[in-house]
């Protein structure tokens, strides 16, 4: 039982980290950024490239190397997110929502197959693998590496929440989510704030990508697709646009999958998890914490 919960929470923290970017972007410009899952993939690949470039250094102090790469990758994917927004979304901001959505799908394919051209279709294996001995905690097998990754995700999520609720920057984001036109009139540089939102969201996805690369080991150019869908689901469960709700949604989806596998078997897992989602949304269409409209970003 405790193993089931731990497995669910661990996967859920990845979902949550990726889901935050979805949620932030949706909150601020009402766009479902379908390219977001691919930024996770891009993060994994840029981390792979950086580790490759560091070469022998990696062998001697792999954890430090991974941490440095994590930070650099966050910057790199963050900037990619900004570029995508500038090139693909900003010119269409006045256009109907549907055009924007299609552009997002296009951006997603461009990233996937662009990566395929650069890195090749074969899956890559990370140079640094987080192997570790397992601890027995309350009957569950937990590794130090899992704990470390969980800690990193929690730190990132808490930092994000503080940024949004406690800083001027966060206030500007919240204000734009409420009324972009009024913000423009009040002298807020809306474009700049939106760029920053993309930067933060994409950086989080990139961080998740590097962590997944280091922990699971295998990366390929289509790896962002499924996690993108799952993260989107997590965001909707939690209440898209709401930050704490999104985190909760990610963890809940992880738990649903873990318990679904246990009770109904592997092949029914997604049927279980997504069936629950449909049921849940008919009862509560705004998601877990979706009603607090005033606080969404």
């Amino acid at each position, binding site marked *: 039982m405790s*193993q*089931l919960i731990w*497995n*669910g929470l*661990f*996967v859920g923290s*990845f979902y949550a980290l990726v889901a935050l970017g979805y949620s932030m972007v949706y909150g601020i410009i009402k766009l479902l950024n379908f390219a977001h899952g691919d930024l996770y993939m891009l993060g994994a690949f840029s981390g792979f490239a950086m580790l490759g470039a560091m070469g022998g250094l990696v062998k001697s102090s792999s954890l430090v190397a991974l941490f440095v790469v994590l930070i650099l990758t966050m910057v790199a994917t963050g900037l990619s997110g900004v570029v995508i927004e500038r090139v693909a979304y900003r010119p269409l901001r006045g256009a109907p929502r549907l055009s924007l959505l299609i552009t997002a799908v296009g951006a997603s394919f461009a990233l996937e*197959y662009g990566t*395929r051209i650069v890195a*090749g*279709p*074969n*899956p890559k*294996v990370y140079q640094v*693998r987080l*192997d570790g001995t*397992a601890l027995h905690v309350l009957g569950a*097998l937990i*590794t130090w590496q899992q704990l470390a990754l969980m800690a990193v995700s929690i730190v990132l999520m808490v930092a994000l929440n503080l940024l949004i609720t406690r800083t001027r920057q966060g206030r500007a984001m919240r204000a734009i989510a409420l009324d972009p036109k009024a913000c423009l009139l009040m002298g807020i540089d809306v474009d700049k704030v939106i760029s920053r939102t993309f930067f933060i969201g994409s950086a989080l996805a990139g961080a998740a990508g590097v962590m*997944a690369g280091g922990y*699971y*080991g*295998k990366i*390929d150019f*289509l*790896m962002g*697709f*499924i*996690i993108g869908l799952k993260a989107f689901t997590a965001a909707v469960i939690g209440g898209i646009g709401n930050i704490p709700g999104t985190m909760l949604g990610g963890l809940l989806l992880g738990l649903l*999958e*873990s318990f*679904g*596998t*246990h009770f109904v*078997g*592997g*092949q029914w*897992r*997604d049927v279980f998890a997504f069936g629950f989602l449909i049921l849940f949304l008919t009862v509560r269409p705004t998601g877990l914490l979706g009603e607090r409209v005033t606080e969404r970003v």
Partner: protein
Amino acid sequence: MMRKAALGVALAATALTASACGQGVLGGDSKKDKGPILLGMDIPLSGSSADIGPYMKNGAQMAIDEINAKGGVIGRKLQLRAEDDACDPKTAVAAANKLVAANVAVSVGGYCSGATLPTLPVFDRRKIPMIIPAANSTELVDQKLKHVFFVNGTGDQQAVAAMTWMTKSGAKRVALLHDNTSYSKDIAVRTAAELDKPGGPDKATLDAVNPGESDYSANVANLLRSKPDFVYWTGYYQEGGLILRQLRQAGYKGKFMVADGSVDAKLVKIAGGTAAEGAYATMTQTPDTIQGAENWIAGYKQKFGADPGPYSTQSYDAVRVAAEAIRKAGSTDGDKLVTALEGINGLQLFSGPLKFTDRHTLTSGGFVILVVKNGKFVLQDALK
């Protein structure tokens, strides 16, 4: 249905006109009979199995170059035409239609069973023989199509090989895991049927995962609940490596075996460290396990600058079988080719001398058991 029929008539009419024109210009011996004979190949060059396509294409190209160097067959050269099926049924049908439109004489492609299945009627209806080098779900064989042949062992043969090895290695409780694709499920379900027979090891569980994900810890936990001492994964290597790694992380100490779709050096790398050491595989012959294939491997390396991968030998053989059939039939007519293919007896392939069964499969699957030793798949037991 009506529209399809009408389209068919229109196409047939166009084809007639085209060949009539050809005859008009060149007289008697039409141009179509002088140019190269096209061999079509539906293979994954993009998508989840994109890395297998080039191996198959290279293997086929190697056979074609060898045959052309000796003057081709029935006085004509062979030419390969590969189309990307992306391991996706819809793309595969479109690709098959392209090959049919290009007038290929024989199809020598087919890797993902799920994507190959809908292409069978496309070729069969045009009486274009298919010699399928890799796709081997029994579902394909069960279509019982006249023009479809298999030069790879099939799912039921693989299940029997797996069962033989499980018994031989002393397994007690076997857990089966597949990825719900036609190929993978076929082997798992057939192995389950073997396990359910009295005697030998028992079936601990039969479960499935969703391919394309990274975290299989929930599946692994579920699998371990059934207390297996032998796990057989019948999907592809990308998930196989992850599952093996996560099984070991979850404390599983028993034996692990994969089916032929997982036999790739990357499986060992993805599993990481020494996690894959001692893992078994049911596999048809690969270049490195075939004795006396050193020259072939050297030739392949020289030509393509890379090591031959899985299914390069089968694709090479598929082309040779096609060439042999054309030579015997003396033409590229579909029905004559089928008769010639059925009549082939003793053509030496990597898997042994060829004689198709009445189901158009190999007489014996030629499956062997490999084991991972020092990070490489090597022969463990030839099951002879």
